[in-house]
């Protein structure tokens, strides 16, 4: 969904920066609080960033001044929280713009808003809701990652439609962009959901201590083992 460098004209690129930056600032605050409290979380945070980088660099071209790819931000939102994910995303997006010419610096605000803010916050909300209604962990992770990915593209379509209207108005342009993306994005989102389930299982199995310190999962304590059976 990385919108190409320069694709958004003035004043849209400034507007998206103005919307995205306060939330990233909140993320920086959360990040410095977490790394002070649990310094051992740093490798996991950096790994999540690298994961977002690698997944969102696997792009399929799309004829919308953009591209189609998994985002990885849904899993990151579940593991490190949506605020911190927005910081990781903006860093990753800068690297992709600089190293791969994928996305751009002026479109950084818009891309951060879709991939680093709306996607992760929706994914996190779904994950919390799934936990509330006691869905199995794997279903919750799948839904969070897949829907978080799709929502990102809905936002990108809206961002493009605001700049490039059709005769049918904003909504018509929005549907046009959305349907171009949907062809490649729906299968990719399902794939990303499945991958997220596999990876989260691995993380819970090998790094359960760290995840429970970050309050992502509850490790069964001896007293509560019979009440809440371990997922693995």
């Amino acid at each position, binding site marked *: 969904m990385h919108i190409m460098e320069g694709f958004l004209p003035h004043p849209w690129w400034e507007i998206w920066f103005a919307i995205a930056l306060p939330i990233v600032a909140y993320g920086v605050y959360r990040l410095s609080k977490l790394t002070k409290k649990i310094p051992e979380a740093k490798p996991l945070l950096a790994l999540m*960033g690298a994961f977002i980088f690698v997944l969102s660099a696997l792009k399929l071209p799309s004829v919308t001044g953009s591209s189609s790819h998994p985002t990885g931000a849904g899993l990151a939102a579940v593991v490190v929280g949506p605020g911190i994910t927005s910081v990781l995303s903006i*860093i990753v997006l800068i690297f992709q713009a600089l190293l791969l010419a994928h996305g751009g610096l002026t479109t950084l605000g818009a891309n951060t808003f879709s991939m680093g803010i709306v996607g992760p916050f929706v994914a996190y909300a779904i994950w919390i809701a799934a936990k509330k209604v006691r869905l199995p962990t794997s279903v919750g992770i799948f839904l969070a990652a897949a829907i978080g990915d799709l929502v990102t593209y809905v936002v990108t379509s809206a961002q493009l439609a605001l700049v490039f209207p059709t005769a049918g108005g904003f909504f018509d342009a929005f549907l046009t962009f959305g349907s171009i993306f949907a062809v490649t994005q729906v299968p990719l989102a399902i794939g990303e959901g499945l991958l997220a389930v*596999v990876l989260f299982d691995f993380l819970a199995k090998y790094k359960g201590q760290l995840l429970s310190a970050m309050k992502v999962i509850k490790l069964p304590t001896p007293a509560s083992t019979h009440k809440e059976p371990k997922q693995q």
Partner: protein
Amino acid sequence: MAHSELYAQIDRYAYINPLAKTSPVTKMLFALSALIISVSSPSPVVPIIVFAATTILLLRLAKIPVHFYLDMLAYPTVMLALSCLIIALFFGTGEPLTQIAFPWFMWTIFKSGIALSVATFLRVEGALSCLFFLVLTTSITDIFITLRRARVPKVLVEMALLIYRYIFVFIEVAEKMNTAQKLRLGHSGWMRRIRSLALLSGNLFIRTLEQGERTLTAMNARGYDGNIRVLEDQPPAKKTALAGIIIFDIMLVLAAYLTLNTGVL
């Protein structure tokens, strides 16, 4: 994968080009100010000037080979041209240019759609040339040192440097595991290939994480306090270069005002 090799070269040029040892502040100021003015300009003339100026600087001063620069531009330009074609044919409002009647719907091409498409094409090419100037002349390390000096929060720069390192760890670990799987016939047949891929993606994650944890332990043992210090040997910005950039920017803004009413069509 010629495409990905191309991008591996960008980093190499950032270190070996004749401008590599000049002040990163100057280079960043030039690229970013030209980028912002070019993207914000309503007139299509400014992106053309910016594209010409950055291209000449890249080829003459930074001595980037012409064929490499063209290779870099080729992929985004093709994608951009396709996107702009779609915009020209299907987008726009207001005065129609031509109408083609199909049995089931009326296809209208709008003047404003074509104007929008041409303006977008020029704007993106101008912006891309600025971005390429920045990445081909300035290394990532230099950019981060400059950001740290510009008082960007420390925790952000630290996280960025860690992620940067991790991207390469990730790729190295993946390559090693892929080779190992291939050697043990892990890629013989469809089902086995999918199973190998699942094993690789899961283990890749844990392996990279563990390697990172060991690195952090090693860094802690050497007194890591949240600051990653690197040798900062970049020269300070030259006053003449800064003055030149400011004059160039003022000229761009003037050009934008003078050609304000120049439509594309």
